[in-house]
């Protein structure tokens, strides 16, 4: 494994930089140098899923040229990894070895214990795309189980969608909110203080609902939990 690049995703780069910083910190702690090609922007998923395939095609081509030559591209998003791996080839721009973070850690680096410390009660929401497009299975759970201090509580009906779905959340806002309500009920049933997941998009959705209700559950991306150590523990991002 020579050259590793980080694909931050437009959402995380713009709204959740702490997650991308956590990926860098985590990989460097595991002894891997990671690069961040500054020409990267967006994988085109929003365009593709909303019916603008031609725009998505252009973005897929830029993606392929930005990440050409890397041996692995790591991204803290199951859904963008799915877009790049499963859809980009159909748009004539495949060939980039993209891994979602938990896949990269478990399958490529072969680690499940990354030396993390996170003394909180946590529940995990497996996002639809990491589950059904990528098939990450219980890799994220294996990583979480190895985190010291972390109390993992199982999320009821974990595999059902949170109702985000990109522009679905706007075009079918009522249905999306009904799905969100059920997801929040399950999250609250766990008594967890932290909700984690491999995608900031779903966390933005569920977290946005929880925040509206002042529910007292904080969304934290998996990468941030894995980057947290006793010496340098996780702290809420200052904005």
């Amino acid at each position, binding site marked *: 494994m020579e050259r590793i690049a980080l694909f*931050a995703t*437009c959402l*995380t*780069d*713009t*709204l*959740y*930089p*702490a997650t*991308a*910083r956590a990926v*860098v910190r985590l990989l460097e702690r595991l002894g891997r140098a990671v690069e*961040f090609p*500054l*020409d*990267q*922007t*967006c994988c*085109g998923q*929003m*365009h593709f*899923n*909303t*019916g*603008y*395939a031609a*725009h998505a095609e*252009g*973005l897929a081509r830029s993606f392929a040229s930005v990440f050409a030559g890397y041996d692995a591209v790591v991204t803290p998003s199951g859904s963008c990894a799915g877009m790049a791996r499963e859809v980009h080839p159909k748009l004539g721009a495949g060939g980039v070895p993209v891994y979602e973070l938990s896949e990269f850690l478990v399958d490529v680096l072969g680690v499940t214990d990354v030396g993390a410390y996170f003394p909180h009660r946590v529940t995990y929401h497996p996002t*639809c*795309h990491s*589950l*059904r497009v990528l098939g990450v299975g219980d890799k994220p759970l294996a990583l979480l189980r190895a985190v010291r201090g972390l109390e993992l509580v199982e999320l009821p009906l974990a595999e*059902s*969608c949170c*109702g*985000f*779905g*990109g*522009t*679905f959340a*706007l*075009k*079918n*806002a*009522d*249905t*999306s*909110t*009904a*799905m*969100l309500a059920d997801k929040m009920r399950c999250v609250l049933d766990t008594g967890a203080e932290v909700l984690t997941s491999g995608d900031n998009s779903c966390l*933005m*959705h569920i*977290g*946005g*609902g929880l*925040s*509206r209700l002042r529910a007292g559950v904080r969304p934290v991306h998996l990468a941030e939990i894995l980057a947290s150590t006793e010496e340098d523990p996780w702290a809420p991002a200052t*904005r």
Partner: protein
Amino acid sequence: MGTRNPVTWLGSPAFPEAARTALADTQLRRNLRNATTTIRGRRAAAVAELPDWERLRRAGEAIKDRVLAELDTHLERLEAAVTARGGVVHWARDAAEANEIVLRLVGDEREVVKVKSMATAEIGLNEALAAGGVRAVETDLAELIVQLGDDRPSHILVPAIHRNRAEIREIFRRSGLAATGDAPRELAEAARAHLREKFLSCKVAISGANFAVADTGSVVVLESEGNGRMCLTLPEKLITVMGIEKLVPTWQDLEVFLQLLPRSSTAERMNPYTSVWTGVTPGDGPAEFHLVLLDNGRTATLADPTGRQALRCIRCSACLNVCPVYERTGGKSYGSVYPGPIGAILTPQLVDDPHDAQAASLPYASSLCGACFEVCPVRIDIPEVLTHLRARVVSARGRTAESVAMAAAAWVFGDPARYERAQRLGSLARFLGRDGRISRLPGPGAVWTASRDAPVPPRESFREWWRRNRG
């Protein structure tokens, strides 16, 4: 053509509006949650029993694809086989033609019994028969509940899934069917007494078909109650309306689907009744058999290389039962006899009118979670077809506020420098934040903040941090 395809119900609002009304129906929400949760678990268990389930799915997919690739020759073989065995084959281009054929075949009879069938629901046959003075009596229990309640179906397999037992008893009571209680057995008993009489008095039966074997001209119906078997054997004349995509080449092919269908639909290893008939047999069953082969938008669907996978569908309803959208909104929100994920991809293709706003709203009725594709026994990649159909809607609409916004977003993403400038501009939204959250966004963002807070943009994007620390 020119006439409206009755696959969608006239006057149905677009999906988001219809869903809004349905979501407020608390009884519906509970009925659906109970029903779908139960069947979902049972299907998973029934499928897990088979070590070769994935191979079966792939076989089902391959057989259907082969049929679709050579549909014309298979149909001709089917027609020849049915005719050779004494049946009569009719071809119907659309719903109106099919209804006309059936009405003509019914002749002077004023009442007919019906086997549960999606094809006849798709063409609005009952309404067409009523207009011609013929009463159609549904004999499937759930279909009967819908009919007596003057209601619309909300599920492919269990059209009355939105009703609970207490509601059903009430519907029966109002129709003069006295049930002694609301236990399933008591409700079934009341329906049985009502239907037995019809089976014995009606001279014509109308059915759909799950499959037809081209080799021998045999038509196949799978069911649970046995009422279908009554219709298929007792009357003098049998009329079957079947979509042209329902055929399989051989009995060996049929065997694959006889495994896939029951486990996917009712979570049974085998359905209680499988009726097969081949033309007519003197002294045994109906003396006259007519097979109406229905197109109604199917050849147009076949012409689309991505969209045509929808024609592999065997109407098992597994995709409905696992769909998180369907579970909340129910089937009637889709405004069509085909609800749920399969409806979202099949209905707009059968309608085939880019200016039909209701049909155009259906491909958006999904969060693209992929649960449907995971369970589909013939591996229809429903999310792929959904995004494909969204693209068709977008190009038919031309320039809209959304298309302008999307083009602008693509232009921004198309260049890292522009993207970064937009990032910095967007970061100003942090001044809308209070206590770490934004509770009200302006413009289209208001739809988001109607039910969720939005994140406060950070002062520094990741790339700015990277440049400062690692650049």
